[in-house]
């Protein structure tokens, strides 16, 4: 794919210079050194901000004003230099420079911009606009909207298959997950999944994992057959899923269950999904993310406005970090 280039008004000269020099490089890159150290980013919906936490010391290192309203979801680039944040009330995507801890662009995507996911090559950010039932495709270099895809009612979750051939969009209103062919941008199939499907994530097994936040279950989709192949009840209002290990055991799926104030641990064998453990956390856990090694989980709580760090080996809370108001999403990036 060719890249939009040469426009001096499109973004920083540094980024353009770097991209031109790299010519056709597959990923969002610049000449700057990679971000060192691990970082945890928290989207604070009622503070319109992103809290940045050191992933090793668990100390807050900064807060970024999203320059928009109702900051909701986050996606971090593979090199850790760029963070993209949706803003529900503004219908905009904020582009954040993680070195400068600063919002450097605000992009109008669509009404009620809900979730953002980067394509596997990081060239595009796909944003689900729950208020107009579309996906906006944002060029992560120029910040232009390259196109939109009409999807079902109330798109709330978004992820890509391992090979990047398919995008998966959960639609609250239709109770389905739609499969989009990324080569044609056509919807191939709508898979019935359950009540109020919400969060979607690519699992370590290459399958697509999702939560039915309006119900009590999580489910698994096989990209080989594009069918829902398993589900399990975990408790009322399951929110998000991350993956990790408990010693030799794993990978396990860690599910925030808002109605229980717990993280429910589920085995990842779709032939034998079962609850392994439940970990007490704070009030209304929502976002969850794991470190690369699968030994730490970061959980944010909408009511207590904090981030808890969980050691998966002992299933114990290592630290509690105050963040902004109504934290919804947390993402980890390790160097």
């Amino acid at each position, binding site marked *: 794919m060719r890249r939009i280039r040469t*426009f001096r008004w499109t*973004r920083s000269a540094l980024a353009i210079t770097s991209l031109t020099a790299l010519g056709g490089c597959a990923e969002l890159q610049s000449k700057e050194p990679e971000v060192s150290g691990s970082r945890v980013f928290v989207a604070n919906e009622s503070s319109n901000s992103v809290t940045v936490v050191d992933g090793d010391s668990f100390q807050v290192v900064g807060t970024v004003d999203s320059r928009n309203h109702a900051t909701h979801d986050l996606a971090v680039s593979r090199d850790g230099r760029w963070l993209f944040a949706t803003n529900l009330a503004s219908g905009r995507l904020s582009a954040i420079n993680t070195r400068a801890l*600063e919002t*450097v*662009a605000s992009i*109008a995507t669509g009404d009620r911009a809900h979730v953002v996911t980067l394509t596997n090559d990081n060239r*595009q950010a796909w944003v689900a606009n729950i208020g107009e039932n579309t996906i906006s495709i944002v060029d992560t270099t120029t910040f232009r*909207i390259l196109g939109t895809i009409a999807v079902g009612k109330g798109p709330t979750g978004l992820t890509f298959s391992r090979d990047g051939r398919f995008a998966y969009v959960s639609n609250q209103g239709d109770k389905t997950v739609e499969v989009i062919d990324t080569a044609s*941008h056509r919807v191939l199939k709508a898979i019935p999944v359950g009540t109020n499907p919400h969060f979607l994530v690519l699992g370590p097994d290459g399958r697509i994992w999702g939560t039915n936040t309006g119900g009590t279950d999580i489910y698994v989709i096989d990209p080989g057959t594009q069918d829902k192949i398993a589900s399990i009840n975990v408790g009322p209002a399951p929110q998000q899923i991350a993956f990790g290990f408990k010693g030799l055991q794993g990978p396990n799926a860690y599910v925030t269950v808002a109605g229980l104030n717990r993280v429910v641990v589920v085995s990842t064998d779709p032939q034998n999904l079962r609850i392994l453990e439940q970990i007490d956390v704070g009030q209304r856990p929502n976002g969850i993310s794991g470190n690369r090694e699968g030994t730490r989980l970061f959980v944010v709580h909408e009511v207590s406005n904090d981030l808890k760090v969980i050691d998966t080996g002992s299933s114990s809370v290592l630290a509690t970090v105050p963040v902004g108001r109504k934290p919804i999403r947390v993402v980890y990036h390790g160097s």
Partner: protein
Amino acid sequence: MWPVGGPLRGGLVVALAVWTWSLLPGAALPAAAQGVPVGTAQNAVGTLVVVRTDGIEHRLQGRGSLPLFEGDVLRTEAGGQALIQLRPGMPVALNEKTTLRLLSRWDKTTGTMRILRVRQGEVWVKAGDGARQLEIETPTAVAAARDAEVDLKVAEDGQSVLTVVQGAAEFGTPFGVCSVKGGTASVGARGAACTTPQPANAQTTVSWKQAVAP
């Protein structure tokens, strides 16, 4: 008690600081929805319907001066056409059965880029440089115009035809980018890169705008 001239001096300092800050590169804030007008609707053949972000509708028939704001949706009907002027000097004509939304992108380095998000229909735009550049988004493509006169027609299925009358414009889809020069046209469709620009009779393509042209 304030020292003599204290409040006045303080006010001057604040004013000077604000003025200085406004001169800094990238100091512009993201455009606030429905705050400052971003242009005016000046002429309509038939009726131009303007829908504000709160749903309030205004109609322009014939010549006038209807302020336009960020987030407004503009709509022409069958047989209708309209001319709007975006600040700081970008004439835009809407052909019949056109629906578009006025938006912007803010970038710290370059400031605010005015954007027309065309759902369907046809627009003609004359863009300049600097703050008078413009981007036109469609369901399948985006055109960036700088020092260029362009026409963009968007079909019901999102297929978009960019014709450049004068200058050059970049035309991109999620699958590729084309540089389109004066007197040529390119097509953007779902699931495909833009087509190689082909010669086009640009003057004929934009003849429709004569009824409302500035």
